[in-house]
């Protein structure tokens, strides 16, 4: 019997992110949603993933439930392999030890360049100012594969970001290397609240790989500020599973601080 699953857009993005991690690899974890992705992934799919935080927690196993407002405190540095500081944390990524990184974004362009600094106006007098890079620039510069997490709203997908906070493929093939960024790195996937994108090997442009079950790929891309490439076959993304939702809601974030969001549903 088909049934309807209800979830939030955030839960869907978190579940997708958790499914992208690979076991036995390293994961540079940013603040917020990536933390929950790491926890869910480690619980369900990749028990031996090694988390690393910019504030010097190397290989922590976060305590549940997630407590908002903690950063570098006991909850997300618990049972680490090593406690260090920021210069050493970025040494791990700069020397090639970080396989995955994950970052949120205000805007993203076809080459996976990220704006997380401001919207509207100029840098000096923006209309809306946000947190900026934090360690995001280092994560996007150093990690072998960077995963971008962004709400699927057309206005967030722009032909050119207003401010390039963290580098994607810049202006296209070879541009990262030409700029001096570490070779062989760059954005790997873009996880949205409707779809999953990758990057075309040749052109380095964003490519639609899959959409949430029940959605039409053309509908998914029609509001975007640029036309992404389309994979030959567009896969279907399974909505959050019962187990993913149970863990998120009961064990990881029972206060629903991070997993709250727009209601969505899918028939399975």
């Amino acid at each position: 019997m088909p049934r309807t699953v209800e979830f939030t857009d955030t839960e869907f993005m978190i579940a997708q992110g958790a499914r992208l991690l690979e076991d036995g690899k390293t994961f540079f974890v940013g603040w917020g949603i990536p933390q929950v992705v790491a926890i869910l992934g480690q619980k369900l799919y990749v028990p031996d993933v090694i988390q690393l935080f910019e504030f010097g927690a190397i290989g922590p196993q976060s305590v549940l439930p997630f407590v908002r407002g903690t950063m570098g405190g006991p909850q997300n540095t618990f049972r680490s392999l090593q406690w260090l500081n920021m210069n050493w944390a970025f040494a791990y990524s700069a020397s090639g030890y970080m396989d995955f990184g994950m970052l949120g974004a205000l805007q993203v362009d076809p080459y996976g360049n990220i704006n997380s600094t401001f919207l509207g106006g100029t840098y000096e007098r923006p209309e809306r100012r946000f947190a900026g890079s934090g360690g995001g620039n280092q994560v996007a510069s150093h990690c072998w594969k960077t995963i971008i997490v962004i709400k699927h709203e057309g206005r967030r997908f722009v032909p050119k970001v207003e401010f390039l906070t963290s580098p994607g493929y810049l202006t296209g093939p070879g541009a990262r290397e030409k700029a001096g960024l570490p070779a062989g790195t760059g954005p790997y996937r873009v996880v949205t609240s409707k779809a999953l994108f990758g990057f075309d090997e040749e052109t380095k442009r964003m490519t639609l790989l899959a959409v949430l079950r029940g959605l039409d790929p053309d509908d998914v891309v029609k509001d975007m500020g640029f036309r992404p490439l389309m994979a030959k076959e567009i896969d279907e993304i399974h909505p959050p599973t019962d187990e993913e939702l149970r863990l998120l809601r009961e064990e990881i974030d029972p206060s629903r601080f991070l997993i709250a969001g727009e209601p969505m549903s899918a028939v399975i």
Partner: protein
Amino acid sequence: MTKIRKEGEIEYRFEPPDDFRAFVRDRKSRKAEPKLCSAKEAVSAFVADGDYLVYDFSSLTRGPQSLIREVIRQRKKDLWVGAEFTLHESALLTGAGCATRIDVGFLGYGSYIGQAVCEGRVRVYEWTNGGLALRMLAGARGVPFLPTRDLLGSDNMGVSAAKVIADPYTGLPVAVVPALNPDVAFIHVHQADVFGDARIFGTNLFALEAAMASHRVILSAEEIVDPEEFRKDPMRTTIPFFLVDAVVHAPFGAYPGAMPARYEIDLAHVDRLNGIRSEDQMQKYLHETVYSVADHEEFLDQQVGARRMRELRARATIIEGYR
């Protein structure tokens, strides 16, 4: 001493390494002298208008919040803040009229500081977390700059004084950031002795780098311990005494943030800070928590209370690893 350099549009704090070395030679005492004093004395003696200030860690975790409040209470002016995690500190220092420039970092959070940037009330330079940490390392290491393979290709390059140069060995492009030698560093620690030897338990941002790179170092400590403790267990020393100028005994000095393994974050108070949007709300908050109380102790007595502090201590149940 050249403290601020302007090249093109971007101003940045810089001091030639020899000037800093001379300061260390002439002005930093190596004598083990008692440096215990009140926050009022420390801030009034070691923080001047126009200073460049850094701190470790953040307003959520082990931040020197009681010292930040004392800076506000003393109405310091025209501070330039090196703020890796610019959380509530930046909003409060800006709202109080103390800070006019901020090097970030992560500019967060709550809408107040974003609005202040939009209105041009505070200038922000974009060094990124890794860039600021590296500047601090260069300052501590006595070199004029350090290279890094990030920042490249990003717009942060245009709104900081980071530069791209040709690597002298390979000719390939590499980013460089100038050393940072702040006027003053605030570091909140778990334990210190009266001379300034200090221990931090858990991770840190750049506590040792900041202590070595800064002209003056003010510690606030949850606990004052016997100096012999450090000699018996040197692996656990985060900062040795001769880097330090003042030690302030400040239990609950990180409040409303958390002190790992000592007390948890006061989320209700943090929500109140996050909720500050208007100038009225900011001034009301500053009046209640800073201007209307004489010092940190009075703040804790009147605004937090023994019962709340007991609760926050009781919530700090994870102690494994913190010793």
